[in-house]
């Protein structure tokens, strides 16, 4: 049993600009009892403190993140704060949001062994536990592989497996699906279902509700560092999607993105035709990619100009690579793309496409928000830059360092840069991953604004709610067609 009595926590201000930008995530006056074997979902807008709550339970607060802590957190009657982290580690396993940053080892098998090795368990026992976990999670094909060659979905599976090897009683999930596509999310769901069936205590902090909804025993709704509602199973079943959106929550019943009905193009549309697009990585040092060895091999895909098109895929493979090829970033892509009856060459595409990447940290370079927009303009012009910032509601932050913005603000800044670039085609790679309902709506509105400016917007996304909200065309993508 987990008990939180009158718990409050404020991050130390020296703990960087980041925490202030993430709307703090501090907590006040939290009282919560979680029974053994229950599956609890923590939800609420970004920055409401749900990750902070998980950190209190696994002991990262106060042992790693420092700040002002009040009240006490008890697990099975023992206070967490007094115990060293390694003791909590035996009982509690945590899966984090970012698949890129939760592995200490470079290969999967070492990662699975890591926890047990640290705890000094006999090598033979560890090996048999790894074997058992690999079988029950169906990940034998992922063993002995380099972490850097796995997809995000596969990485999250390894993260789940690496805590499962330690057989923890309590499992904490901190937005584990934020970077995953629909297919990978459903696979993650199966692993979580195993834990739920075995009667482990599972606590998940999530925005995306649909993949967990039918398994949850209880939902704790948070806002501004406080618990504002606590729903039990019966009350949950009565909530409609409409009620959820009024609470600022995502839908509980999303269809698979590939099943949403939207036309790919209509007869009235002007369009860009991808007659063929092929791309293969170099296989090794000597071997070049051969035909039939392509990662991407697409024929006759049509995209409507001046519309918002969603690109969805049953399986996330190759979507990002496809976007890279489309906007001309991949020198080795072989393509035949036609616009207005003439070929659209790679060099020209590089100057007509703007891509907003999934991790916007990669594309913000400068030291102020204003400067960021200025370098995107074809000719520097401060008035113009300010006007664009106003349209995305960032003028008040114009002197801020882009890295000190919150996730949603960075996204808006990247969109401002896209507008400033005055390019006609704007591509988005999963713009709503990890965003709550409110921010998702904001992005949807910006998409419509872009379209009204006459831009062609192409969005790779797995977010069904978002597609239903703002997309007008939809292309089902298969990396080989």
């Amino acid at each position, binding site marked *: 049993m987990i008990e939180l009595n009158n718990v409050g926590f404020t991050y130390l201000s020296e703990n960087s600009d980041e925490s202030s930008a993430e709307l703090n995530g501090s907590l006040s006056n939290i009282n919560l009892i979680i029974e053994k074997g229950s599956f609890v979902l923590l939800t609420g807008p970004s920055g409401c403190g749900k990750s902070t709550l998980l950190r209190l339970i696994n002991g990262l607060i106060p042992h790693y993140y420092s700040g002002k802590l009040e009240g006490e957190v008890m697990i099975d009657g023992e206070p967490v704060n007094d115990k060293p982290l390694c003791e909590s580690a035996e009982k509690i396993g945590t899966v984090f949001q970012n698949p890129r940053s939760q*592995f200490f080892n470079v290969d999967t098998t*070492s990662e699975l062994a890591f926890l047990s090795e640290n705890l000094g368990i006999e090598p033979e026992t560890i090996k048999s536990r790894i*074997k058992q976990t690999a079988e029950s999670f169906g990940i034998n094909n992922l063993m002995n592989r380099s972490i850097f060659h796995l997809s995000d979905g596969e990485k999250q599976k390894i993260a789940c497996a690496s805590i499962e090897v330690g057989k923890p009683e309590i499992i904490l999930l901190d937005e584990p699906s934020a970077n995953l596509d629909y297919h990978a999310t459903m696979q993650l769901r199966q692993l979580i279902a195993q834990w739920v069936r075995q009667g482990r205590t599972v606590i998940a902090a999530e925005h995306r509700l649909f993949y967990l909804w039918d398994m949850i025993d209880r939902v704790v709704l948070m806002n501004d560092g406080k618990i504002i509602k606590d729903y039990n199973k019966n009350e949950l079943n009565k909530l409609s999607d409409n009620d959820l959106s009024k609470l600022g929550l995502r839908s509980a019943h999303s269809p698979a993105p590939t099943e949403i009905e939207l036309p790919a193009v209509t007869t009235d549309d002007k369009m860009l035709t991808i007659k063929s697009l092929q791309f293969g990585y170099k296989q090794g040092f000597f071997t070049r990619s051969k035909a039939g060895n392509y990662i991407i091999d697409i024929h006759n895909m049509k995209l409507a100009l001046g519309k918002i098109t969603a690109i969805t895929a049953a399986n996330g493979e190759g979507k990002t690579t496809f976007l890279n090829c489309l906007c001309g970033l991949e020198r080795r892509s072989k393509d035949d793309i036609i616009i207005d009856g003439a070929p659209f060459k790679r060099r020209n595409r590089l100057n007509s496409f703007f891509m907003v990447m999934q991790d916007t940290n990669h594309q913000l370079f400068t030291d102020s928000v204003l400067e960021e927009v200025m370098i995107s303009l074809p000719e520097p012009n401060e008035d113009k830059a300010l006007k664009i910032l106003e349209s995305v509601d960032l003028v008040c932050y114009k002197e801020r360092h882009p890295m000190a913005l919150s996730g949603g603000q960075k996204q808006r800044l990247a969109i401002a840069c896209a507008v400033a670039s005055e390019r006609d085609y704007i591509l988005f790679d999963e713009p709503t991953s990890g965003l709550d309902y409110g921010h998702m709506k904001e992005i949807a509105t910006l998409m419509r604004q872009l379209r009204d400016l006459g831009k062609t917007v192409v969005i790779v996304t797995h977010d069904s709610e978002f597609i239903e909200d703002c997309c007008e065309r939809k292309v089902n993508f298969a990396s080989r067609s």
Partner: protein
Amino acid sequence: MLKGDYGKKSFINPITKLMLLVTLPAFLMGGLGGKDAEIFTLIFPLVSLFLLFISKNFKAGIIGLLAYIAVIIAWSALSSGSDGVLHIMLFIVAGIVTGLLPCALMSIYVISSTTASEFITGMKKLFIPDAITIPMSVIFRFFPTVKEEVHAINKAMKMRGVRFGGRKSAGILEYRLIPVLMCSLKIGDELSAAALTRGLDSPRKRTNVCDTRFRIQDILLLLLCLCAYLVWVLSLFGIHFGEVVKL
């Protein structure tokens, strides 16, 4: 798929790797033993090439081998006939390639073939405290991560038109550095938190699923290093290896 045996086996033990990492620069770049140890300046580069090939790292191996051969040929063909500036330049290039390159190749081998877990176990066997071992073990993780980040950032720069020759080319270094540093810092921070929830700070004696016993190849390589040091020490006492052999 199951091999029953998890954990890739390295060809040599982490301790042997550390020994080689210290010994190679000492003799190839530091010039320990001088003329007497000349034979080792030929053997050690071969060792690093051999290890690269055996770990199937052909790219680094072949590039290393070609560079090495090219410089040796150029040096022997041109050094006698040249003088002045050309001679000095050749001397510098040859020095870098014959001294630095084998050491770099050995580092590539060690970093690409050692798991963090093996490394930690090796360091523990040498009684090196955690305060040194743990931060160093992150290196194995860090290089590939930074490489991934840099790759993504380069794409973004290209897409936003920051390239050589353009209006924005002045910022080409600064623009690259900021996101690389920021992303690396963030990843480092999250990585530490994740590792701590997986018991990294445990005071208990760490176990290891990898096989870190000494095998015949370890003993041979360690003996090789030992010989090199022996030659050096003897030369300090005025006993010269070259003359001993002649006798």
